[in-house]
């Protein structure tokens, strides 16, 4: 019974195609869960919208760019104070959001004038900021506002500003994923090649698909610096708008999040011949492997080995300490998609843990190919999981810890199961050698909290 119909899904039997339990000797190609298809209404699916995929996930991480959302206020309010991507310029990108604050009259008669006024006001309020991204949302897409024309007019009038428009309303696609795609492809079409970066090293890369959650980017860039490699564009953690315009000048595209940013890596390869090298920037042993691949590509293996040796000396003992204590613990990973395949074997190899159930909100078939080939037998692989399924999974497998978002974390807490924030982390960064140890520490502390023991006791039965 490789595909699994949960009891809670008996009235929506099409869910069976989305759930797979891996067994010995099966031809995986026969059982890849259906993915990236329409959501079933009313399921309490975990999915968000494609505007989120563009603005909150990718564009919003840039540290020097106004993120103006053309629509009613909620889309702006909701993508503010929810992310943990710091920057080295005092976190401009975390502190501000902008909205054209669409009103009913604009829905009836058009919102372009309103957008134009809002753009001008935003540049006036922040005179040092010269870069902007404008996002269309559900209502402004439906009424057909031509945001690109408005943006071109403002660029001409102000002269020194550059504006990128993302036309990806919340109903486009089936999840956040479409927002990634539109952002990638349009950035490639419109902005790459319009800026010439200063080249300071013979080894240059773009780091693609890393959003500096709790400072991941700083960790990754530190390794690259020590190897003498220049990062041209960081897509988009701690990134700048103009650096992303100059991505065509890198010699290699180092790709971590192949889901959200594989598109632009592919396009850069097609148009400029820049090779795409996929690495896992999470995971202790994966970090070694990634640095070795990178060293080999540029012929600087010695530098890679030096970084590895230094890092291993610093973190190796700590990793071992946690591995001894975490070995055999059962983990669920319920996140977006890529972290399933980045983490399942890394947690097994680095820490001896067993990932027993995984759910992806918006992964595509290739994400499931990756995770099922790396993942364990007996593990449940779920596409677009929903709340009742989560309860059923917990009952089936009784995990020791769940890696998921804070809201679901609060839910599993009532079942006396600890969580670690698999999106924004507890105490990150989680990338690289030190990150792998940070993650181990947070899982160890979560599992070993005395509170779980206390919560199970009923004092009435202990008189």
């Amino acid at each position, binding site marked *: 019974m490789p595909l699994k119909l949960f009891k*809670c*899904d008996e*009235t*929506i039997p099409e869910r069976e195609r989305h759930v797979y339990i891996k067994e010995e000797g099966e031809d995986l190609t026969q059982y890849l869960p259906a993915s990236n298809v329409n*959501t*079933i*209404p*009313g399921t*309490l*699916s975990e*999915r968000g*919208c494609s*505007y*989120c995929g563009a603005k909150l996930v990718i564009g919003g991480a840039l540290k020097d760019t106004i993120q*103006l959302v053309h629509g*009613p*206020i*909620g*889309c*702006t*309010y*909701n993508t*503010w*104070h*929810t992310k943990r991507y710091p920057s080295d310029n005092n976190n401009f990108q975390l*502190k*501000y*959001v*902008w909205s*054209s*604050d669409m*009103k*009913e009259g604009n829905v009836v008669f058009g919102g372009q004038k*309103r957008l134009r006024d*809002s753009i001008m*006001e*935003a540049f006036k*309020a922040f005179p040092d900021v010269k870069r902007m991204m404008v996002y269309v*949302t*559900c*209502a402004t*897409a*439906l009424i057909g506002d031509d945001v690109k024309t408005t943006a071109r007019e403002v660029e001409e009038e102000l002269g020194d500003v550059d504006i990128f428009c993302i036309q990806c*309303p*919340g*109903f*486009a*696609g089936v*999840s956040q994923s479409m927002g990634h795609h539109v952002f990638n492809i349009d950035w490639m079409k419109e902005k790459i090649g319009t800026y010439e970066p200063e080249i300071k090293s013979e080894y240059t890369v773009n780091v693609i698909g890393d959003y500096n959650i709790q400072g991941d980017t700083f960790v990754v860039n530190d390794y690259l610096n020590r190897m003498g490699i220049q990062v041209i564009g960081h897509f988009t953690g701690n990134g700048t708008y103009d650096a992303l315009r100059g991505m065509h000048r890198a010699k290699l595209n180092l790709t971590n999040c192949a889901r959200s940013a594989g598109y632009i890596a592919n396009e850069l390869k097609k148009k400029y011949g820049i090779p795409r090298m996929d690495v896992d920037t999470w995971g202790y042993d994966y970090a070694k492997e990634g640095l070795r691949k990178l060293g080999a590509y540029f012929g600087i293996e010695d530098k890679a080995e030096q970084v590895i040796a230094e890092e291993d000396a610093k973190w190796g003992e700590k990793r071992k300490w946690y591995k001894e204590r975490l070995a055999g613990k059962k983990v669920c990973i319920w996140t977006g998609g890529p972290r399933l395949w980045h983490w399942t074997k890394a947690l097994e190899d680095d820490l001896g843990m067993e990932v027993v159930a995984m759910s992806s909100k918006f992964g595509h078939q290739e994400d499931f190919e990756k995770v099922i080939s790396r993942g364990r037998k007996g593990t449940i692989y779920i596409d677009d999981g929903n*709340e009742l399924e989560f309860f059923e999974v917990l009952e089936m497998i009784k995990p020791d810890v769940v890696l998921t978002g*804070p*809201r679901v974390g*609060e*839910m599993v807490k*009532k*079942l*006396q199961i600890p969580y670690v924030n698999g999106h924004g982390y507890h105490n990150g960064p989680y990338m690289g050698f030190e990150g792998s140890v940070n993650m181990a520490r947070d899982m160890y502390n979560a599992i070993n909290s005395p509170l779980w023991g206390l*919560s199970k*006791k*009923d004092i009435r039965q202990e008189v």
Partner: protein
Amino acid sequence: MSVSIIKKERTGVINPIFNCQPCGAQYASIGIKDCIALVHGGQGCCTFVRLMFAQHYKENFDIASSSIHEDAAVFGGTQRIEDGVETLINRYPDLKVIPIITTCSTETIGDDVEGTIRKINMSWKKKHPDCKVKLIPMHTPSYTGSQVSGYDVGVLSLVTELAKKGEPNGKLNIFTGWINPGDVAEVKSILSQMGVEGNILLDVESFDAPIMPDKSALAYGSTTVEDIADSANSVGSVAVCKYEGGRAATFLEEEFDVPAVLDSMPVGIENTDKFIKNISKLTGKEIPESLVIERGKAIDAMADLAHMFFANKKVAIYGDPDLVMALADFCIECELEPVLLLLGDDNKKYAKDPRLVDLEKRANCNIEVICNSDLWELERRIKDKSIELDLIMGHSKGRYIAIDNNIPMVRVGFPTFDRAGLWKHPIVGYKGAEFLAETIANTLFTDMENKHNKEWLLNVW
């Protein structure tokens, strides 16, 4: 002393004070037992809002999406409502209410929610004659109003659809508005001291859910369909917040002759006095000595702080309109000077609100009120030094203004995610006034210590 009411002059918004209408309707829906709302729109309209409730309460609340995709956006989305309702009813057998909440997309394309509900009700009657689930339309286009009016629409829709005349129940309807579980507990305590049985709409006290040994507890509201139906039979209604539940109270008055009182939010001594007197008037119950003692304790606590630490301190306040107006009264009571009030949406009624109009008589400073405001209005005034502040009172989304400008800040309203457990504490009632005054004092004290600003003062006061 003057009160000047002005409007933000910019078209766009930088750092909004409020979320949009559907968020408010969703907040109303989670206050009901056996209720899962179906948010008819893109998935973000529901997922983001669930996250926001988790930020404030550190709990999970169930809300569903109709998951509008491109085809529905072009060709109409009513089938998504039908499918969503069916899925919910099939998978959640205890469900009793499904509010269907519209969003900007589905209001723009003009999906006929009422017609769809009729259609579903007809077909369900045939398929499942025992099914008693109520479907309630809530029209909340996000390009009108804000989370505040959305909550008001939500509660009004519940009452219009469910309230039913029957036998008098002797209870008093309390429309809580968007207040914390701690506030609801405080309102209930006042009622019980007065011997009044309340019909709490909506009762969110149970949002403070325990971890139980048998893992049985989850967070949900505890107002039932029957409670809402019974609201037509109460002796009267008191709206704790006029703009959040006020229209529902007025509806009951017009439709079922249940007298409604829409007065100040009971924040501060005098506003609580009014609240208690209103309850007494509607129910004929006397005010017990226990409340006189509570009141005296609060004044005792505030008197230690007011002229010593609070007098002449300048305060900016932002948030829900009822809260901001009532906090201004509270500030004046304890000698704080509420120089800047920011109201975060375009409701034209604020400017004519009698509480703001009357504020001039009580004001202890010149007060600027900005309607349709955003938080950039506050930040800009601080940065260009057109105001100097000693304290900010507002929700956590304004935190960086306080942090970056070294101004002490007390978290009030929604959401307050950057401090622990605030939603458990009341700010309404005498106890709330006491808690607020002491929280303000402790915040100022910590600030004195951090800045080494006469921190040695805090020994004998």
